[in-house]
């Protein structure tokens, strides 16, 4: 029963802490760490068994690298080679060098210093990617560069896993090497008796076997199993594959992570990539979560309270050094203004891989226990401050830096009756319709790439941030009749509409809205008409679906029309029930009442009750009417 009660404690801690941490914008990794801290040092419900659990949980890392491999389609990697080798490579090598140098200054052996440098060069993929995606910064130059660097780091983990044991051999601590199991992969006893060349040959053969088998053997096997339509057996096969490769690599004395990574890459362009991903993902997530829990549980608070100055000093020093290097790299690689800040601030922490590699390094005897304890704290603290850095970027840096980006807004030398703000998927359609109908349209956008692309097809777009009053003024809003707000960003869109409505009361404003609530917000901000951006597209697909299902095309049109009218009426009616920042009971009630009438209307329309007033087509008079 001990297993069950342990599992209960770990799971309960995770289930409580992770969602809360996520909600607070800290990310799941920190959630697990904090949960670990609570059940370990604070409550003391888990104790010495955490080390065993940790060794088990390290298998999550093996799985993670399998997934990383699956993501890395060789063709995609090849396309990104410049970014990966240039920007990413320089970041890893440069940061490693700086921290290794610092380590030497602190009196570490060169092996330990190098190991530490490599480990600290890595940033937190989990926190950063999640934040970039959440905030919608992934598409920016800064986001893309961050992604390249993180990807390089993920790949760099593989050689690091290979190099760390070598550093240990030189360090000379043979006893430690056996304490580590799964992820470390420091087996190789089976081959120890063979001469060096034979070992090398066998290792090469194993790698070749993985690649060849992955290409030619695994695919038919997966196809065979997939065709059996036994979902759990497919999952079992995927797990079997990962564990099997790990064991094999362990047997020849190579890193299991390296093996599964290779297998992942080999399978990355197979048809079963997504299925494998979704099958392994939960196991990886739970095991890694467990791993971070154990890291948290193992944090030595005595150390922190004993020398808070040192620990925090080291953490801030670490972040400052990483930031400086990243900022310099951003400058070299021509990242502009806000993008450079996002890139440098976002990646300034050390990452979850550090915990993995710390465990590995301690197993291999590369780093001393006391140093590891300290550095684990330092890394955790640097991660803990990452959300704060993102907030700093969003609230303080970005608004200021954006205001003075290196590229000045274009001088707008054309005039039109219409100004269109935002030339994305939405603005392009509106502008093209207007321009081909013979109107002069002044188009503004803030994405240089979009502007360049449109320029190539002969559409002139002016660069600038439409939230800046002077740009709108320069665009001739004073003399324009119409302003089309087609900005993708919800808040910016509302802001711009509000500004235009206040400053140019004579200009009609047509606005693109994200959803119903945004319609109300935009109307309140002063838009004369706001349209939900996906509504008509969805209506059109719905109508086509009815036709596909056998409805007469004209009938489908009528139904779609009825539905649209009802929906627009609801939009109108719910307006007064909508209050800033959300909905209350009256809104929900009104909405429920509306969907009930909708069902009524559509049911009537299905012909279950004929000759209803809701069916507005030509209707024959009822048979019983004697006047006819």
């Amino acid at each position, binding site marked *: 029963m001990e297993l069950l009660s342990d599992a209960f404690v770990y799971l309960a801690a995770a289930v409580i802490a992770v969602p809360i941490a996520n909600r607070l914008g800290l990310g799941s990794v920190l959630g697990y760490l904090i949960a670990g801290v609570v059940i370990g040092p604070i409550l003391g419900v888990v104790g010495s068994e955490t080390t065993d659990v940790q060794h088990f949980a390290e298998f999550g890392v093996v799985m993670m690298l399998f997934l990383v491999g699956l993501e890395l389609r060789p063709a995609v990697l090849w396309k990104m080679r410049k970014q990966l080798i240039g920007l990413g490579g320089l970041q890893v090598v440069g940061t490693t060098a700086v921290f290794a140098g610092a380590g030497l200054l602190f009196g570490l052996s060169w092996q330990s210093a190098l190991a530490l440098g490599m480990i600290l060069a890595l940033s937190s993929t989990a926190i950063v990617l999640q934040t970039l995606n959440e905030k919608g910064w992934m598409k920016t130059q800064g986001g893309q560069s961050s992604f390249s660097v993180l990807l390089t780091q993920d790949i760099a983990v593989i050689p690091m896993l290979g190099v760390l044991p070598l550093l240990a051999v030189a360090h000379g601590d043979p006893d430690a090497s056996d304490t580590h199991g799964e992820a470390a992969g420091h087996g190789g006893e089976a081959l120890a008796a063979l001469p060096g060349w034979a070992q090398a040959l066998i290792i090469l053969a194993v790698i070749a076997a993985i690649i060849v088998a992955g290409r030619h053997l695994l695919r038919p096997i997966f196809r065979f199993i997939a065709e059996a339509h036994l979902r759990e057996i497919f999952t079992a096969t995927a797990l079997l594959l990962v564990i099997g490769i790990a064991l094999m690599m362990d047997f020849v004395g190579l890193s299991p992570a390296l093996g599964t990574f290779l297998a992942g890459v080999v399978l990355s362009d197979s048809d079963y990539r997504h299925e494998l991903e979704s099958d392994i993902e939960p196991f990886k997530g739970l095991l890694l979560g467990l791993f971070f829990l154990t890291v948290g549980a193992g944090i030595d608070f005595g150390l922190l309270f004993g020398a808070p100055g040192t620990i925090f000093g080291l953490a801030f020093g670490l972040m400052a050094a990483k930031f400086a290097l990243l900022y310099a790299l951003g400058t070299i690689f021509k990242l502009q203004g806000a993008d450079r800040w996002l890139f440098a601030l976002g990646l300034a922490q050390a990452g979850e891989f550090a915990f993995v590699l710390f465990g590995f390094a301690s197993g291999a005897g590369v780093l001393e226990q006391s140093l590891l304890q300290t550095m684990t704290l330092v890394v955790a603290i640097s991660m803990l401050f990452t959300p704060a850095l993102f907030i700093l970027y969003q609230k303080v840096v970005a608004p200021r830096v954006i205001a003075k980006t290196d590229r000045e807004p274009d001088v707008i030398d054309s005039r039109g009756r219409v100004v269109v703000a935002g030339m994305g998927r939405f603005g392009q359609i509106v502008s093209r319709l207007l321009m081909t109908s013979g109107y002069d349209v002044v188009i503004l956008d803030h994405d240089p790439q979009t502007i360049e692309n449109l320029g190539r097809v002969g559409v002139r777009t002016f660069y600038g941030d439409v939230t800046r009053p002077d740009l709108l003024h320069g665009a001739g809003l004073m003399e324009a009749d119409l302003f089309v707000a087609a900005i993708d960003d919800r808040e910016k869109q509302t802001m711009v509409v509000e500004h235009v409505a206040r400053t140019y009361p004579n200009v009609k404003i047509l606005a693109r809205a994200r959803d119903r609530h945004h319609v109300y917000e935009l109307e309140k901000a002063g838009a004369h008409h706001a349209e939900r951006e996906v509504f008509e597209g969805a209506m059109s697909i719905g109508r086509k679906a009815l036709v596909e299902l056998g409805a007469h095309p004209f009938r489908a049109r009528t139904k779609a*029309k009825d539905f649209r*009218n009802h929906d627009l009426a609801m939009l109108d009616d719910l307006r007064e029930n909508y209050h800033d920042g959300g909905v209350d009971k009256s809104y929900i009630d009104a909405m429920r009442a509306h969907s009930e009438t909708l069902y009524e209307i559509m049911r009537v329309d299905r012909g279950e009750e004929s000759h209803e007033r809701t069916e*507005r*087509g030509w209707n024959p*008079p*009822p048979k019983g*009417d*004697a*006047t*006819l």
Partner: protein
Amino acid sequence: MNYPLFQTAQAVEGVTTVDLYAEYPDFDINVDAEQARLTTHDVIVFQHPFYWYSAPAIMKEWQDLVLEHGFAYGLHGHALEGKVFLNAISTGAKPNAYSRGGMNHSDIRGLLAPFEKTADLCGMRYLAPFVMFGAGRAVEDNRLDVHRNAYDDLLKALVADRFDLKKAAKAAVLTDVLDDYIIKGEAV
């Protein structure tokens, strides 16, 4: 040709003008609103070009939807009873084409029979049509302004209830003979 006539109508006090194509560009006619409009007016004028011996498509759609059973006709459909109905149309051909011996083998009122029967069935009083023949050359022949003035007179007389409905119901066409039907009295 119909647009200046429409403008003439817009300028007459007591006349509500409805540009169906402007109001329902997608043919999505609001039946309730249209029925309410009918209920609050006494005279309904269909002003339109005589496309293919009938009305433009949207006016047919309007009839199909708005003149519902139970509203315009049928056992309980009495909403339009006693109201006056008039076609004010323009044709391409000259008046002589609209006769038994002419190109169309029928006079204009005969060709408008579907409208007359519709009015009948709804209990409305159908007047002879007010027609601008040969609309294609109306401007060159200086007939447009004459016709606009006549239309103005006709509408004002209808608003003021000084139009001889009985007589107009029996006529073949109202064009050029308006004065015979307008009841003289004090100025409008």
